[in-house]
């Protein structure tokens, strides 16, 4: 089947995102918890905009879907550096 990769860090495809939406996922965190999209090294910086667009296109709501909050560290940081501060 034709499928498009959406999350490169976690190897998640469009069909999986659509499946998660069908199961009731209606926010970025909700889809992430179902199929791991956005859990990777870049923490959704690459895939969240796409997932957000898919959500907008599939949900019959005019409100914007809930997005993921950035939780520190904003960029990956060595644990050794975290304890230095």
């Amino acid at each position, binding site marked *: 089947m034709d499928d498009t990769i959406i999350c490169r860090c*976690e190897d998640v495809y469009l069909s999986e995102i659509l499946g998660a939406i069908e*199961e*009731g*996922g*209606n*926010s970025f*965190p*909700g889809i992430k*918890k*179902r199929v*791991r999209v956005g*859990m990777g*090294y870049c*923490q959704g910086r690459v895939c969240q905009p796409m997932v957000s667009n898919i959500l907008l296109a599939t949900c019959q709501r005019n409100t914007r879907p809930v997005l993921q909050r950035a*939780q*520190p*560290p904003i960029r*990956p*940081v*060595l*644990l*050794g550096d*975290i*304890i230095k*501060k």
Partner: protein
Amino acid sequence: MRQKVIVIGGGLIGTSTAYYLAKYGVEVTLVEAKDIASGTSGACDRAIMLQSKNPGPTLELAIKSANIYEKLEDELEVDLEYRKSGGMIIIETLEEMQAMEHMVERQQKAGIDVKLISGEEARKWQPGLSNDIIGSTWWEGDAEVNPLNVSFAFANAARKLGAEIRLNSPVKRLITDNNRVIGVEVSGERIYADAVVVAMGVWTPMMLKPLGVEVPIIPRQGQILVSEKLPSFLQVGILSASYISNKLKKNHEDDKKDPFGVGLAIGQTHSGTLLIGGSRQFIGYDKTETNPEITRKIGEAAIRAFPCLKKVRMIRSFTGLRPYTPDGKPILSPVSGIDSLYIAAGHEGDGVALSPISGKIMAQVVCGEKPEMDIRSFSLSRF
């Protein structure tokens, strides 16, 4: 006519309750304010650890739950990332050694075959452990599971058995008639049922308060760091002895000496990331931001145990609210004085481990069967 039951809350406890009720042939409606696992069950760790449970009713409950977990993937026909990895509680000081000797003795009496091993043996089981670790417990029966998978799997299995799952449906209030709960009100709509199970975790007290019922659950925040993916490195689930003493601490007054209650809990997920926790703090419902000072303290604890972690990158941190009760035991109970109303909540840091048995017992109680364990220790009226 089939019995009709509403379960409020789609976390580990509510989804499990809905599943077992559906399995017993009940007509179930699960009503969730946001989404499955959007509360504490979506912001927690993955341990099914019996060693960390206080010997007594909670341990007995946990043993029954662990037995269900062994066959749960087959029963639900999904991958829960369940693994019987074994668990260790690592010991850094002589004082901790004494406390753990005592704990191990009580665990052994309760039938859990935990062993105390030397630092050297511990390093053999788990390479990378610091030379400063003077000893450890070890039990092969401890396990782990992906709590998100568990919540979704229970919800989906319940749905397959005919349960209705209503997401984005915050329950506004319970509808009562002559000291009997007859349904719930959801966004203007009324849903009626023969019984209602409140499984709202830390939010449970809010649903009961208008009926004049006080539920002594308070949120106890925990914070966790997530690392980049690493090749398989942690074979077992690891806690520190200080984690145990923080967990079993009873007073919920803020501790001035150790306000963050940091103790190490570390494990590696199937995808390779490390989950490194954790803290225990009573700071209310609203602070969801992670605290850099706690991050640093957790980092220090982790590096003390595993010096090699200095060179590992952290990609994220998150917080969750444990539903704490004053005696550390969950509430699995009818509400006396109000018919047809039940509570399944207050699992603090044990809700992953206790999810299957809690749901099963609640289903038995609500269906009028004799529960497979005496639930008097978990009654609401004990407070």
